[in-house]
């Protein structure tokens, strides 16, 4: 047992020194009927080499993203992460530390959280950001609950073009509260229609309007008029951003009038990892800070007047407020937030802007490829690095066929909007800096073949 330092001799000595007859003597408070009298029958311990071989075997059963042309997005994006990011987050002082409850010996974690909060506030164009949440989808539900606390109203309007799984999470998390979710129908072909529906549903009971930008189909739009309409009714505008790289190219949600910005931060510093762990970004305006969920790091001084950082405003949190807390959240995503901060530091202003424009250029190339296929209709006029197309046949089948010829060709909208009528033939594709010309060629050729 390579992870257990005690030897049998240690155990004997220790038991003797505490006057215990045997190890089970220490378990004497356990009711007799609960004792396991024989082994459960699960496998016994394995060596490093055995474990490595086992996982490699499992890995070999996957068709990984790097194995061919790759265009899958819809809430998680494949980007290049500099080698130093993963090296730094694996330093034991970061990896094996805990939530910084003892600030005198946790300034490393606290300072990077302060830097992270600042970076997120700047990127989103907001006043203040928290020290991260689990991911974008749970953050979105938290934003809706926060809007309820701020406005004391009970009805949230969810844009039809908000990621389907985000909508499901919001609905699930609020199902036993008195908050009502007004879920609009997806509008893959005409985002303006979604916008009009929101305005029609907006009223004096609306707590917030939740929109995604770029939306799940890749459309982007100026939210300024929407923000004005929402504010006129005394409601809050929650803007969800699932592709954090887009902050480098687009007008920030704050500039367009958002009150709460929720982001999925995986694109910066994070890998795909089959869906997690990811990184929830959460930013808002100064006036709402005490209604915010999650941990916050703040600046202060020590007894000698030296600047330092502490977790602060923790009276909002569950360990103090218990059932009156702003949220039941306990952990944040410390390590993925660190990866984000390091990657953002390497990018800097210059890097994030260049990276964003490169992504957009690749998406334009993707659009051109798709436009060259007669039976396909490209649905986006304005977009960032993701676009949607309408196919003559169901998209799910097309994606399966493409996978058979080694192309991971996007996400069928039916996968994230199961049971919704008008999205069966819609395919969502993303392009990033990792896509090369040969990928676009292969995709074009593959699609022509599959749609023949």
């Amino acid at each position, binding site marked *: 047992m390579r992870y257990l330092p005690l030897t049998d001799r240690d155990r004997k000595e220790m038991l003797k020194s505490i006057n215990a007859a045997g190890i089970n003597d220490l378990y004497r408070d356990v009711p007799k009927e609960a004792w396991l009298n024989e082994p459960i029958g699960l496998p016994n311990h394995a060596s490093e080499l055995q474990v490595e071989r086992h996982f490699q075997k499992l890995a070999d059963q996957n068709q990984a993203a790097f194995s061919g042309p790759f265009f899958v997005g819809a809430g998680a994006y494949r980007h290049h992460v500099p080698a130093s990011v993963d090296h730094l987050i694996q330093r034991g002082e970061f990896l094996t530390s805990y939530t910084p409850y003892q600030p005198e010996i946790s300034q490393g974690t606290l300072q990077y959280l302060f830097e992270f909060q600042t970076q997120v506030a700047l990127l989103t164009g907001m006043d203040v950001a928290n020290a991260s949440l689990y991911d974008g989808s749970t953050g979105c539900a938290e934003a809706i609950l926060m809007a309820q606390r701020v406005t004391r109203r009970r009805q949230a309007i969810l844009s039809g073009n908000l990621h389907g799984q985000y909508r499901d999470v919001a609905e699930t998390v609020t199902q036993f509260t008195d908050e009502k979710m007004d879920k609009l129908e997806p509008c893959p072909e005409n985002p303006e229609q979604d916008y009009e529906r929101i305005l029609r549903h907006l009223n004096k009971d609306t707590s917030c309007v939740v929109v995604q930008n770029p939306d799940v189909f890749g459309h982007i739009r100026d939210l300024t008029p929407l923000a004005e309409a929402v504010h006129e009714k005394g409601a809050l505008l929650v803007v969800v951003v699932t592709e954090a790289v887009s902050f480098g190219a687009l007008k920030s949600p704050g500039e367009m009038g958002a009150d709460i910005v929720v982001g999925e931060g995986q694109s910066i510093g994070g890998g795909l990892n089959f869906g997690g762990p990811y990184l929830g970004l959460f930013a808002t305006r100064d006036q709402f800070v005490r209604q915010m969920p999650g941990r916050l790091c703040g600046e202060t001084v020590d007894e000698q007047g030296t600047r330092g950082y502490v977790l602060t405003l923790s009276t909002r949190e569950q360990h103090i407020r218990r059932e009156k807390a702003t949220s039941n959240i306990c952990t944040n995503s410390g390590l993925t937030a660190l990866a984000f901060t390091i990657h953002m530091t390497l990018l800097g202003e210059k890097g994030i802007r260049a990276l964003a424009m490169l992504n957009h250029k690749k998406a334009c190339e993707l659009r051109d490829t798709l436009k060259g296929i007669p039976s396909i209709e490209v649905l986006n006029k304005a977009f960032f690095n993701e676009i949607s197309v309408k196919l003559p046949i169901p998209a799910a089948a097309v994606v399966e066929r493409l*996978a058979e010829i080694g192309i991971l060709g996007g996400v069928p909208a039916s996968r994230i909007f199961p049971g919704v009528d008008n999205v069966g033939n819609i395919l969502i594709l993303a392009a990033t800096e990792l896509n090369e010309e040969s990928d676009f060629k292969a995709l074009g050729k593959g699609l022509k073949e599959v749609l023949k």
Partner: protein
Amino acid sequence: MSTYTGNRGLDINEPLLFEIGNLERTGVEIPEIEDFENALGGLERSGPIGTPGLSEPETMRHFTRLSRKNFAIDMGIFPLGSCTMKHNPRLNEKMARIPGLSDIHPLQPFSTVQGSLGVMKELADWLTGLTGMPAVALSPKAGANGELCGLMAIRAALEDTGNAREFVLIPESAHGTNPATAALCGYKVKSIPVNDKGRVDLDAFLRELDEMGETIAAIMLTNPNTCGLFESDIIKIADAVHNIGAYFYCDGANFNAIVGKIRPGDLGIDAMHINLHKTFSTPHGGGGPGSGPVVFSEALAPFVPVPYLVADGEKLSLKEALDGTDKAFGRLTAFHGQMGMYIRALSYIMSHGEDGLRQVAEDAVLNANYILEHLKDVMTPSFDGPCMHEALFDDRFLKGTGVETLDFAKAMIDEGFHPMTMYFPLVVHGAILIEPTETESKRTLDQFIAALRDLAKAAREGDVERFTKAPHLAPMKRLDETAAARNPVLRWRES
């Protein structure tokens, strides 16, 4: 002595990134692109974002210097009660980074991710096997999210019978997440008292149950509990709860004490979350990401949220849609949960195997009792008898010394230890909760015990400055938390 730079040897000051970086500098090379007609629809960012950059060598140095201001398990004992800060094997990190497992998108077709689904299947089998419970929801993102999952399943099951009921019973000693979760599920919280043995007061509890009857939806209990003790009446509690048609939620934060030795399923538990970052050693990473799968009894199994695994012969897939074809109570997260953590936990579980995990529990309990026994004559244990994986003391031994629990903890920092959990659980005064875990050697424990004995002696002998001014030797002195909260400065701004 003071130095010109303010640095002290290896302890080097590091300004904020915003004070040393600038908008021109970068540590990456992005290929230049030629002008092209963009399709941003006039939504281009106009002014600068304001996020400074650093070159790669500066970045390495900035974060390396920061890292050195942290205490970590890799450096020494981190005995935070209730947090299970055990060694994080690096094999787990290596496995999670195998490109064929990490470079996989969550929305690829199932036919292309059979290996990843295989990881989920194997982890699910281990968790159900070790707990003796038939079903599992892997997707919860952390312990508190797992609690939400468990309680939502309970509410869904009750609603299915037509009566959601009103109250959740929670002992005074519970984690704060428990009542916060109950509130989010629309339940009122009723607190149940703890007896002088540190356990649920069975008589008071049965009386409460009698009086409130079918208004009770569930009890949320931590076992082993937050006082580090096994709830010896747990089976009677479970029976009584089931008798009125209510459910038993167990906070599994302390599963480390019993893994491989006792199955929660045999105790009558209906739902329990397992913090993979505690019992199964996925790294805490300065506060997450965690992962909190929930195991369920037969009665709650039908209500498990999507996504859940479906096996068709050898072929695996996920049920993802909320289409009314099952009783799933909903979806707690986009995608499928903390896959990276599943891999690490599975790597750890396989490494230990059933025999090793049993040894984990036994060594964790032995180490805690070793500390309890060797400190009980100089510190004051809150309850009699052996503990499970953590030893609870209160502050009676500090009475009249002018030293408080907080000061005692800060003095431990000077001795090179991370302090234990303080002031939790709330049921004892000035709580000191020590959880060494199984990955500490006898040599470390002996030194830790000797140091705490010396501190207890110094407090008794009136060496108050050693405590109230502590830490003397950390990178920082005590920080002014009042100032931080009165005038919150939550980000850097150009002055």
